[in-house]
Each structure stands twice: as structure tokens, then as C-alpha cells.
């Protein structure tokens, strides 16, 4: 961009002046490739454990966004670092820098590239979002009513007449769609099961539903409150176990339900 731009001032630049712009772009490209490679290698250790298809999709979006972010961030950092090393003068500068101004093509190009990136993010986000919300309830969808109150969760299984009252751990069957109906008895709470990609506010006086999700991994996961709800907000969490259908049925019976 600026190499050609200061061509008119060539007299002030020394003839042996290295081609800064080409150099810095090469450094940027190399570091970006290295950065993306490192990220792809370590992502599996950094991203949270996914136990549903929805959360896997969320994790994939996270992965893609990071791949895009690395060159964007490095662009600023590489130019910054290069300038600080190469153009730094010791002590108070005695002469002024070259008064560069961006060319219209650079301005338009920059706006265009950031605009395209931004539109990509919006389209990607909306596509993923409407895809997950449009997932229709299957006939065997498990309904779980979640009631938040200071500072505990209560889960009801209306299809089975069972309730989690008195239980520290709730269970859901593996590979069966489940939909949560969330409400609150007192103040605002936030219902979140990170491993399922489920997160919705528990509003007093309103029932909100989550997307229909299907737990895919047997294991134990945390249900957390993620909106500040008063004194013991941080203690408002419970475990949700994803279990086989048989184990789920026996748990339902132990909770006073019928299969």
C-alpha cells in the first residue's frame, strides 16, 4: 500500500532502503500459517467437552472463528512489532516522518475486506442459529420442566410424573431428544448445561424453552446458574448424568415416577 505511495518522496529515502512492505507481509503470512496450525493442533485440549450434537456444532463454530481471527490479530501485531523494531529512533526524533496518507483504493479495500469478514460471521451465525432452533420435536422427545429458585433447581418429568425433589443428581437418557422448559419462582436465573450447548434465562413468570438437543455421550455434566441471583449464586449447581435408557427408567421409578 504505502510503498508505491511514497514513490514521490524517493529522494528522501535511502536507495538501500529494504522493501519493508513485502517483508512484513511475508512475516505475517508465515506467522498466520504457523498460528493456525498450532491452534488446530491444540484446539481439542482447549475447547470444552461436548456431549451433544448442538455443543459440537458450537465448538466447531468456535474453531472456525479462531482460524479466522488468527490472521486478523496477527496483521495488527506484526505491523506493530515490525514498526517498533525497524522504525524506532533512539531519543527525541530530530526530523519528521514521511506524511503518508491512505490511497482511496486502500481505504475501499480495507472496508471491503472487513465488510466481507463481518458478513460471513453474520451469515454463519444466523445459519447455525436457525438450523438449531428449527429442529422439530420428535415423537419421543423427553420433556423436562426446570424450575429455578434461590438457590436450587427442581426438575420435573411430566411424561413420567417424576420429580427431582430431594435428588442431588438428575438423569437423562442417551441418544434421546430432550427439551427443557425453564422458569423461575423468584428472581432471574440462568440455566446452563455447557456440555449440551444449552443456555437460557429462567425468567420469573415466563416459561422459556431451549432448543431440542440430543445427549450423545454417557457421562456426568454440570448444570450451572449463570445469572447472578443473590447470596448463594455460586452454590446453585447440580449434576446431570447422561445414562442408558434402562438406567434412566429405574432412576425415574426411584424418583416416584412411572414408566
Amino acid at each position, binding site marked *: *500500500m*504505502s510503498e508505491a505511495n511514497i514513490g514521490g518522496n524517493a529522494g528522501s529515502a535511502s536507495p538501500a532502503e529494504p522493501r*519493508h512492505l513485502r517483508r512484513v507481509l511475508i512475516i505475517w503470512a508465515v506467522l498466520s500459517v504457523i498460528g493456525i496450525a498450532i491452534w488446530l493442533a491444540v484446539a481439542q485440549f*482447549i475447547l*470444552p467437552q461436548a456431549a451433544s450434537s448442538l455443543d459440537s*456444532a*458450537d465448538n466447531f463454530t*468456535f474453531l472456525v*472463528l479462531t482460524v479466522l481471527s488468527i490472521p*486478523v*490479530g496477527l*496483521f*495488527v*501485531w506484526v505491523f*506493530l512489532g515490525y*514498526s517498533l523494531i525497524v*522504525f*524506532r529512533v533512539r*531519543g*527525541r*526524533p530530530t526530523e*519528521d*516522518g*514521511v*506524511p*503518508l*496518507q*491512505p490511497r*482511496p483504493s486502500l481505504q475501499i479495500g*480495507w472496508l471491503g475486506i*472487513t465488510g466481507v469478514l*463481518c*458478513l460471513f*460471521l*453474520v451469515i*454463519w*451465525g*444466523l445459519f*447455525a*442459529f*436457525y438450523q438449531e432452533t428449527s429442529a422439530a420435536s420428535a415423537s419421543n422427545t423427553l420433556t423436562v420442566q426446570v424450575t429455578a429458585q434461590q438457590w436450587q433447581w427442581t426438575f420435573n418429568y411430566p411424561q413420567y410424573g417424576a420429580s427431582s425433589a430431594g435428588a442431588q443428581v438428575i438423569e437423562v437418557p442417551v441418544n434421546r431428544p430432550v427439551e427443557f422448559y425453564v422458569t423461575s419462582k*423468584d*428472581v432471574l436465573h*440462568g440455566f*446452563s448445561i*455447557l456440555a449440551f450447548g444449552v443456555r*437460557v*434465562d429462567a*425468567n*420469573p*413468570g415466563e416459561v*422459556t424453552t431451549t432448543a431440542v438437543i440430543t445427549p450423545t455421550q454417557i457421562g456426568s455434566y454440570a448444570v450451572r446458574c*449463570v*445469572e*447472578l*441471583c443473590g*447470596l*448463594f449464586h*455460586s*452454590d446453585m449447581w447440580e449434576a446431570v448424568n447422561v445414562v442408558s435408557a434402562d438406567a434412566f427408567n429405574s432412576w425415574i421409578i426411584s424418583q416416584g415416577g412411572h414408566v
Partner: protein
Amino acid sequence: MSSTTDTTTVAAVKRPNLINSLFPSVVSGIVLGVVGAAVAGVLVNRMTTAFSPKGVPNDDAVAAAVYTAWVLFFFIGIGAFNGIFKWAFSRREPTPAEELQVAGKGQGLWRYFRFTTDHKVVGMQYLATVFVLFFFGSMGAFMIRLEQSRPGAIFFNPQTYNTIVGMHGIIMIATTIIMISGPFGNFILPIMIGARDMAFPRLNALSYWLLFAAIPVFLSTLALGGFPTGWTGYAPLAVQELTPGMDAYCFLILIFAVSTTIAAVNIVTTVMVLRTRGMTWGRLPILVWGVLLSVILSLTAFPSFIVSQIMVMMDRIFNTSFFLAASGGSNWLYEHLFWFMGHPEVYVIALPAMAVAAEVAAVFTRKSLFGYRLLVGGLVGISVLSVVVWGHHLYTSGSENALVAPYMLDTELISIPTGVFFLVLVGTLWRGRIWLTVPMLFVCGLLVNFVIGGITGVYLADLPTDEILHGGMFVTAHFHFTLVGAGVFGFFAGLYYWFPKMVGKRLDPLLGQIHFWLFEIGFLGTFISLFQAGLQGEPRWAADIAPPFATANLIASLFAILIAASVFTFIYNVIYTLVRGERAVADEWGAKTLEWTLPTPVPLENFEELPVVTSLPYDYGSPLPGPATPVADITGAITQAPIQPQVED
């Protein structure tokens, strides 16, 4: 105002004795304010007891009365209404001598403790207050990090912990809002545009002393049981909360928002009408643009904040039901009102910091801004777009899904004008003569941090990723990167840059470098580990951290020690400089904006002759003449120069 009557005024002023010094001043203000508050408290206590069927006083009404009376009587005591009685009721204009008297002429250091109208006094008052508030706020942060270093309650019970988090949050938000528009917007901005004072000097004093009056209200929450809602004060919880500590929070917001609104009106008017000859919109220094756009944005944002807190107080005092679902209210109402303020407000904080970075970068690269108009366009774009982004705070609130798309689009669009800022800054550094002073170090720190803050914002703006991050530590780390990493770093860049002009002494560069490196390393370490904690699912505002997040939090706490060390390095630097620092010269850095053409300390009324501006203040390396030509005769010849003297490619 005129300076021709100076000599006669000085002769007429009597040598002040102690009584004259104390009244009117902040001392008499506090005395009268406390007395008034006590009387009002007792009266309302008796009244509500008498009217209550059960014979118990309404604590919230008492708190509201005490705070109202405190503010009112504080202002009577400090003499804010003297002018009204002296001039408005006697229907005459104040004489120039009286104007200079209110502006603090001949009052020595006492002028800093009075209702003084001189914009430089107000700027210094703001600066000192920002220091004190930052100190309180950072101490809150260290208490939080200390408590979070290991799982389980170490020092604080949840009640205390929640109050500390809330106090840290609101004190830092308030301080970052005023940190640049307050000190630099009042001290530097009028000089930059070639004005002798702000457009409304008395409103200027009022805005500062309102801020001062809010501090005791805020601290009183500690004695009244604290507040458990965090800085957001979400409504059903805020209404349910029984201690009057919550009223202190609501009242703090009311006073603070009124103060900021008054300051905003003043700054907007000043920039519109008091620009000196030749200071066209196209030649405004970039700091002026940043502060101007920021305060315009705050004018749109803060009214809804005031409204929300009045509604909460009505719910608390008069048992109305704006937010209680049981009797027809809705918590969504509060969330919308709050975030309609809450998201523009982060740009209220960021815009001046970005402007400071551009201002400083141009000076220390000895290079004109790489696209002045482009940057102004970017800042305008940010402020326009940011008015309607608030809905992304309600992505997971359970509202209608169709609402997500416009909010997501608007939130992502903001990255375009923000990208322009990076282009301009990087382009300004490119091939400059970079003089790596302490202000410049902070600008580089800002660029490093703001990239991370901006990019992590994308994850929160995009719904699929927000779904696993919303309400978690990732959010906390993200907004610390923008508010601290960009905002506070911008403030420190400005502080090290303008301190020689404002105080007349040069902050020690070595201590400044130590301050920067401790701060930057500590900051990156602390909040990058919190990103990781958030990604693993740690919720915000958790008094007791769950075991899976212990390691990340311990690392964050260890790095926070470096930030603590940087805070104390900075305090030592300021005290050391005030006591035995070197005297600064008038043009400390070789900058070309108008404030550097004035002697240090800047005289009352700034300019003897108003300067005439002929170009942008960033024309380094260009053959054109300097920006300001203070001409002896205003009516004399004015150099004709193009509005935009840059060499457009």
C-alpha cells in the same frame, strides 16, 4: 470576561482569613450536607412510622430522603447557589472581577476545594478523583482475585464477596466513563479548540461536585448491608433485596448520571460554539472528536439508566410493580433499559481512549495521522451503530428468536469502523520516526490488548458461540480487555502525555516503563487465564469457584500480583514527581496541538490573544506552516490554507 481589570481586582481582594477560606468550600458543604441529611432522615423516619399501619419506618424512603438532602445541602454549603442569589435575583450580570473570583483567581490551592469554575481547576479535580476511585476499584479487584485464588471461602462470606464485586464493578465503570472526558475533556479540550473556558463554567463545577457528592453515597452502602446484585443491579433481585445498601446503589447511579449528562451538554456546547477562528470541524484534534462523540453517545444512553433506577426505587419504596412478575411486571423491562445504557456506555469509554491513542501516536511517530477523515468517519460510525446493539445482551433471555438477527448484524457491523481505527493506527506507525516514550508504550499496549478484546467480542456476538459463553468468565475477560486493555491503557497514555502540561512536572520515565511492563504482563496473564476458565464453563459472579476452574483462577490471581505492583509503582511515581520531579517545559514532546503553545502552568483564561488556526495539528513532515499562528491583531491577515492540507494521494 476580560483580563484588563486584573490589577484592580488583585488590589481589591482582602487577605483571606480562616472563616473566609472555609466558607464557602467543600468543608462547609460537607458540614451542612451531613446536618441536612440527618434532619431529613429523622423527619422521614418519624413520618413513615406514623403513617405505617404496623408502626415501622420505611427504610428505603429514609435512605432516599437522606441522600436527597445530602446532595441539596452539600450544594448549599459549597456555595453553588450563591451566584443565583447574587445575580439572578438582583437581575444583573456578574462583573468581570466577580467572574474571575468564581474562577478561582488569587485563591491559591483553596480553589481546588471550592465551587470553582475555571476549567483547568475542574480538570485537576476530576484527575485527582479518578486517581482515588481507581485506587478503590483496583483494591476491590485484588480482593476478588485473592478470594478466587483457591476454591472455598477464604476471606469473605458470599454477602461480602458479592458486595465487593458489585462495588468494584460500578466504581470502575463510573471511573472509566469519566477518566478521559473528565480530566482531559475539561483541562485539555477547551485549550485544544482555542477557548478561554467551557461554554457553561458553572455547570462544569456542578458536574464535578455532583460526582464528588456521589462518592459518600456510594461508600455508605458498606454500612447499610451492601448490595448483592453486582454492578448491573438486575431488577427482581434489586427489588427483593431488603437492605438499604441497594438504595445507595440506585442513588449513586442517579447522581452520577445527572453529573455526566451535565458534563456532556457542556462539552458538546463548548465544541460547537467556542472553537477559535479557523478551527473548522475538519481541523479538530482527534481527541476533541473522540470526547465529543463519546459524550453525545452518553446523552442518548444515560436517560434510560436514570429511568431504570427510579423505577427500581419506586418498586422498593412505594411498592409499585415495574419488575415483579407476580404482579404484572417484567424483568425484561429492566434488562432492556439497563443495556440500552450498558452497551453504548462501553463505547462511551472506548471512543476517547481510541482518540487519545491516535493523538499520541501522531506525535510520537512525527507523522500525520494516516487518514484523519477516515478515522473521524470510523469514530462516528461506531457511535451511530452502538446505539442499537444492546439486544445482544438478551440473546439468551428467552425473547423472540426473530430479534436475534438484527442485533447480531448490528453488533458485527461495529467491527468495520473499529477495523478502521486499527488501519489508521498501524498506518500512522508505519515508517514513522517512532519515539518510544511511556505514552507511546501505552498506545502499543492498547493496540495489543484491543485486538484481543475486539476479536473475543466476535465470539460473544455470534450466537452459536455465545450460547456456550454467555454469562461466563469469558465475558468478564472480554470486557476487561476492552475496558482496561483499551480504555485504561488509553487513559494512561493520555496521562503520561498531558501530565507535564497539567501539573507542570514530568513523570519519571523509568518508573513509567516499569509501570507499563508490570501492568501489561500482569494484565495479559490474568485475563487470558480467565478466558480459559470461561471456556470451560465458569460462571461469572461466583463467590466460590468450582474445583474444575481452580488452576486457571490461581494463575490469574498470581498474575494479578503484577498488576498490584504496577499500581503501587504508579502511585510512587506520581508522589515522587510531585515532590521532586523535574519541571516540564512548555512544549514537552514537540507536539503541535494548541495546548503545547501555552506556557506551563497554563494561565487563567488560557490565551491572551485567541489563536488563529490554519491547518490540522498533525502536519508533520509537510512544508505547510504550523497549526497555530497566535497573531497580535485578530483582525489582521489570516493565512489562507486549504481545510485539509494533507497530500491526498
